[in-house]
């Protein structure tokens, strides 16, 4: 005896061990609800779908249109992936909406901590003349440009008002070691005060290492200070980019890197490079030099359009095209190095891959939405002025105080961090609400930078079609997806970069987009 099942097929009413045919479980074929997602072309054959919580699906070009047009059927192989990865739903509100919300919240978890990176510009004095320097610098003997003890006290007091349980104190300059006594004072005071505040404090010293000594390193070791330095590549390249007169800057830094590694340990020393016009010719050589110096990663960083760097030809979109070519060459070379058994990571790719391949928030201020300015980072200048970011300080050096939040001597915490200036910036600091960004597939992996928008376009909203920041990130993210789609081995390598215990190039440092030291 039979009767009709839900789909009209005949079903035996006699109890049977057999499973019912799959058609019995279908409701309406090709009817499903869309969940929020975006899409982007990766190659002529491949596109990527990315949902609101950052899950991605690499698929044939045209798949997004098929989904929207309800041309994907229950029997398509991709259907199950679309359901399980929250691109479509068989119900108006998916059963796992709370899971999705939790994952979305996790991606924005950096907001819980509020300002965690506090940059102290100890001095403007410097003994180098880097051609891409973004800051004003003064001669070594101009101690009027050091941070006063009073400003240090008040800055530290403000810092401890941050609700963040993790505080990174980063000393910058100029060359901060030229004000070593002030650094000692600040580190010792913060350590003493932290016995009351009980935060997890990380000290980072950004230095060109030219005047580093064993005594200074002993101090760093005692207080757990991490060293961040600049190494632009082989000797001819480094010395050309970062002339130190008199002397050979490369040989000095090479010796001092070794000294730092011996006294502090390899994990406590890291280096950055800045890609000048000259650097563009030597992607492999730069990677080789980093490996030779014992580093396990490199951050391939372009010139930024601020300060003195803006006066050089390096700053324009033609440069950016060349940088992207340089970057891809270097990244492919790094992948080959890894295949030969040497663990070596490109840090910017690693940061983006962490956002792509893990559910966690990443504390890299340049790729955050809401923006890292104020939410993650603040700068206390040597003169006591407080800025929303290091780039904001550079604008001030050119006479533009748009992003100056206040002064440690005259303004309360509430005014600096929540006052009219901060509120104004906050109106345009989420890429979810920016033209061009709001429907970009790479939104979950990118960030908003109102200061850069202002510096390059004259307003904090910015113009994405002519934005170097946008162009760079879109192309790098697209390239990473292309590499993942072309090779399982490369995908596994990338996953090892984000899942292993490797420390980032700048341990404790959450923004790398400011002047080298």
């Amino acid at each position, binding site marked *: 005896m039979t009767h009709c099942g839900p789909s009209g097929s005949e079903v035996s009413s006699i109890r049977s061990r057999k499973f019912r045919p799959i058609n019995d479980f279908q409701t309406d074929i090709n009817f499903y*609800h*869309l*969940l*929020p*997602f*975006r*899409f982007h072309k990766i190659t002529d054959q491949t596109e990527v779908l990315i949902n*609101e919580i950052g899950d991605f699906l690499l698929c044939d070009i045209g798949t*997004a*249109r098929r989904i*929207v047009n309800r041309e994907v059927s229950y029997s398509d192989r991709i259907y199950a992936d679309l359901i399980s990865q929250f691109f479509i739903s068989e119900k*108006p*509100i998916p059963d796992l*909406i*709370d899971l*999705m*919300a*939790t994952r*979305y*919240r996790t991606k*924005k978890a950096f907001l*819980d901590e509020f300002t965690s990176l506090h940059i102290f510009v100890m001095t403007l004095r410097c003994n180098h003349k880097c051609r891409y320097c973004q800051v004003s610098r003064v001669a070594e003997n101009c101690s009027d440009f050091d941070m006063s003890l009073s400003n240090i006290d008040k800055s530290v007091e403000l810092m401890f008002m941050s609700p963040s349980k993790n505080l990174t104190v980063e000393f910058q300059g100029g060359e901060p070691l030229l004000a070593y006594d002030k650094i000692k004072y600040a580190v010792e005071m913060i350590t003493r005060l932290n016995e009351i505040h009980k935060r997890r404090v990380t000290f980072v010293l950004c230095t060109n290492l030219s005047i580093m000594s064993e005594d200074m390193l002993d101090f760093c070791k005692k207080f757990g200070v991490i060293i961040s330095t600049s190494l632009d590549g082989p000797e001819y390249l480094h010395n050309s980019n970062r002339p130190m007169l008199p002397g050979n800057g490369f040989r000095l830094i090479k010796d001092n890197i070794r000294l730092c590694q011996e006294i502090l340990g390899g994990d406590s020393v890291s280096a950055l490079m800045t890609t000048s016009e000259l650097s563009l010719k030597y992607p492999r050589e730069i990677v080789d030099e980093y490996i030779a110096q014992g580093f396990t990663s490199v951050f391939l960083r372009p010139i930024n359009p601020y300060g003195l760097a803006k006066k050089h030809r390096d700053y324009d979109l033609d440069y950016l095209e060349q940088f992207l070519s340089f970057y891809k060459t270097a990244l492919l070379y790094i992948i080959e190095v890894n295949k030969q058994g040497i663990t070596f990571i490109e840090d910017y790719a690693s940061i983006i891959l962490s956002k792509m391949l893990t559910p966690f928030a990443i504390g890299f201020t340049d790729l955050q939405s809401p923006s890292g300015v104020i939410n993650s980072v603040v700068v206390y200048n040597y003169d006591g002025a407080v800025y929303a970011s290091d780039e904001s300080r550079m604008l001030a050096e050119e006479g533009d105080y748009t992003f100056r939040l206040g002064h440690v001597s005259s303004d309360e915490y509430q005014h600096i961090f929540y006052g009219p200036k901060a509120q104004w910036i906050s109106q345009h600091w989420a890429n979810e609400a920016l*033209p*061009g960004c709001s*429907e970009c597939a790479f939104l979950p992996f990118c960030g908003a930078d109102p200061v850069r928008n202002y510096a390059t376009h004259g307003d904090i909203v910015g*113009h*994405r*079609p*002519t934005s170097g920041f946008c162009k760079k990130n879109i192309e790098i993210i697209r390239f990473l997806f292309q590499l993942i789609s072309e090779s399982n081995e490369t995908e596994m390598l990338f996953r090892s970069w984000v899942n292993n215990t490797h420390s980032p190039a700048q341990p404790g440092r959450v923004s790398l987009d400011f002047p080298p030291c």
Partner: protein
Amino acid sequence: MEFAFSEDCLLLKAQLSIYSVDVLHKCFYWYTAEFAVDIEVQADDMVLVRLCPKNKDLTSDEHGALVNRIKTDLIDFKARDIITKETRNIRDLLVAKAFAHSDQFDSKPAGNVSDPLGYDPE
């Protein structure tokens, strides 16, 4: 959709019932680096879009490539618009649920909390 070239500007006529003003603005926003874009709503449910190159004149080969690029982009932005409109409510719900209890991270759990070793955080 109709395409024409006049004085090196591309003229596109489209029906608003197919491509809304939102779709056209979002699509041609990305052309504003290379072109001066003008969108004009006309009578009879039509819209005229004018794209004039900013820096250099287009060759006839580039005319064809530009038309193909626009056709692809319009379809893509139409799909994006459909997704945006259809998922507006679920997206709002998702964000609202994500941050609904964001002010409660420091709240203590309900009820009496005891520790077998007698630890009292108070």
